């Protein structure tokens, strides 16, 4: 361990839970636990991916028509926003590792701003779909908007939108939780909870945040970029 001031080590010792032998064991354990948790998250989204794959394979036309209602500009912007937030998150973790709590707090705050930015843009898209009756349920109504190409298979386009809302909704829920966790880090960071010897929570929330980003990296092409050609 690098030399540090006594205070840091005391903070670290207070953070050592009784059942661990040392900080190293505690940190490894926490990190491994977080990865295991992310593994369960992958399987959680996996059920939806499976439904998506099955229906996309069966109802390709319907999915193409549904995807053409997506606003690619907003979707791509949101992808960029998330990538930026991942960068600030990664740098925030780095700041915590290097013992720069102020820098960490600033970077995490920027991450939160990006997070809200993502949700805001998503809300605009949701609103658009809602107004166009592209929400599954009794009021669902689908038109391609092109008189030359009427909707071929509106029933299965509804399934596309069911999956769209379920997947992006679940993702947005994860974003909300992520923002809450980062906010918690900011508060704890302001109170001086983290040092280069003890920053497990920062690291683990960082992993979570990147994971949520990762899910979106797949959702974006799956839902927005199926095909630009009409009728497949």
């Amino acid at each position, binding site marked *: 361990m690098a030399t540090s001031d006594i205070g840091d080590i005391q903070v670290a010792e207070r953070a050592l839970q009784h059942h661990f032998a040392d900080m190293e064991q505690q940190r490894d354990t926490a990190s*491994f636990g977080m990865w295991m948790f992310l593994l*369960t998250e992958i*399987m959680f989204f996996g059920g939806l991916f499976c439904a998506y794959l099955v229906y996309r394979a069966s109802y390709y036309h319907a999915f193409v028509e549904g995807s053409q209602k997506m606003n690619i500009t907003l979707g791509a912007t949101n992808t960029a926003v998330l990538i930026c937030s991942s960068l600030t998150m990664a740098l925030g973790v780095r700041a915590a590792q290097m013992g720069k709590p102020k820098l960490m707090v600033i970077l995490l705050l920027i991450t939160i701003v990006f997070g809200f930015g993502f949700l805001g843009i998503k809300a605009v898209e949701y609103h658009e779909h809602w107004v166009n009756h592209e929400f599954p349920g009794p009021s669902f109504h689908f038109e391609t908007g092109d008189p030359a190409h009427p909707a071929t298979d509106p029933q299965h386009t509804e*399934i596309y939108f069911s999956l769209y809302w379920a997947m992006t909704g679940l993702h947005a829920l994860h974003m909300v939780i992520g923002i809450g966790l980062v906010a918690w880090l900011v508060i704890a960071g302001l109170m001086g909870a983290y040092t280069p010897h003890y920053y497990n929570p920062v690291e683990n929330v960082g992993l979570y945040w990147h994971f949520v980003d990762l899910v979106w990296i797949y959702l974006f092409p799956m839902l927005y970029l199926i095909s630009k050609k009409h009728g497949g």
Partner: protein
Amino acid sequence: MATAVQTVERENYLNSNYGIKSWLLTTDHKRIAVLYLISITAMFWLGGFFAMMIRLELLTPAGDLVSSDTYNKLFTMHGIIMVFFFLIPAVPAVIGNFVVPLMVGAKDMAFPRVNLLSWYLYMAGAITALTAMVTGGVDTGWTFYTPFSTTYSNTHVIGAAIGIFIAGFSSILTGLNFIVTIHRMRAPGLTWRRLPLFCWSNYAAAIIMVLGTPVIAITLLLVALERAFHIGIFDPRLGGDPILFQHLFWFYSHPAVYLMILPGMGVISEIVACFSRKRVFGYEFVALASIAIAVFGFLVWAHHMFVAGISVYAALVFSLLSYLVAIPSAVKVFNWTATMYKGSISYNTPMLYAFGFIGLFTVGGLTGIFLASLGIDVHVHDTYFVIAHFHYVMVGGGVMAYMAGLHFWWPKMTGKMYPEAWAKLSALLVFVGFNTTFFPQFILGYMGSPRRYHAYPPEFQVLNVLSTAGASILAVGYVLPMIYFVWSLRYGKDAGPNPWNATGLEWMTSSPPPTHNFDETPVVTWEAYDYEHQPQEEITVGH
């Protein structure tokens, strides 16, 4: 080792702290295990009550005891409670929670607070599901098949689904905790090859909890959403495919039966070794068989769907894979049997239960081969044959192992011995009662008696009466332990740290163990089940 009978009561996890708060806010894995023990026992009795109602209804061919709607709710609630709130958490969350950290020489689970959270999630899930049941019940069967569950049932499907959803996270977190604990918290010298088989099998079960449970969680969430908003993912009227539900459901629920039986297999490995005074025959094979079962268990789910309308080719693939998963189970049975060869065998209660387990699990496993066989499965699918097979594995296997483990570690958990004669009697009653209940159901099933029937054609009556008679014997067999366990808390003899003269780190600390498990972290220098070097002593208590 079993000599020192303590005269002064040593501080242990039970008496270190008093008051309801010290229990509800505890992070001690042993206390959490006790919390689970109490809540799971309550659920077992509730599920058992529903089972008795079902058996009583089936005494006569006409549906005359309860209405068909009530009957449908009874078997649904029996299934939901027994599967999700008893069998899945029983061995891991009670016995595993208590014993695994002791076995690996750790002071606690890797994440003690997460462990407590698991219990709260379990309770929240149970209360949600029970509320749904009390306020009107659920009648979909524990399998929630769509589109019945999403469109045609008029009962509280959403409540039950959300209850299971919440309890699922309890299971996920328990599994996560086991995996991390076994990887990260082992005492110095305790290598994977020295790890007790109970840890191996809990590890394998945890793999299923972690990888399978999220899928059923999202699936039931979709069912709830579909029911609430008619979003059309599983409803054929909206273009959805009800078979997709079955795929996603069984992706978890088939491995889940291995999740229920694997920790029980671990219990049996411990007990057979201890009461044969021998190292488990083919230790590595038994350990790897656990992992093989957990992995192969994920490859066979569609054998629940051979007549459901899946493609013929998929059915062939899944049938073939289903046979493969039988092999590691067979390997385990053969190795347990071989362990007894040239052993020094004593007939203590846990061993009697273990005998019962091996026998009943063999029958349950072999009848599983019938169901893997496409030609036979088409005929016996959804009949009492499946019910009998499932109960042979889950009750004859899982519950027998749970009882075996409870009797084996009860002295460690409480520091007290139970009355051996009564315990032997109950083991016998359970074995006889179980076979009388469920063996006739194999015949019923082959004759074509469909499951979930409230009334049935009269030619099936004789076997049904036999089955109900057996169920009442079985009930007595389960009530007895409840009584003498409670009795033993007050009147039982002191057990001492190692009443069975067993190997394993959990027997090297006092009974009940102190809050921190070990006064100093043990260093392991011996193999698992080192009975060769264990001092040969007569078992001093428990005769």
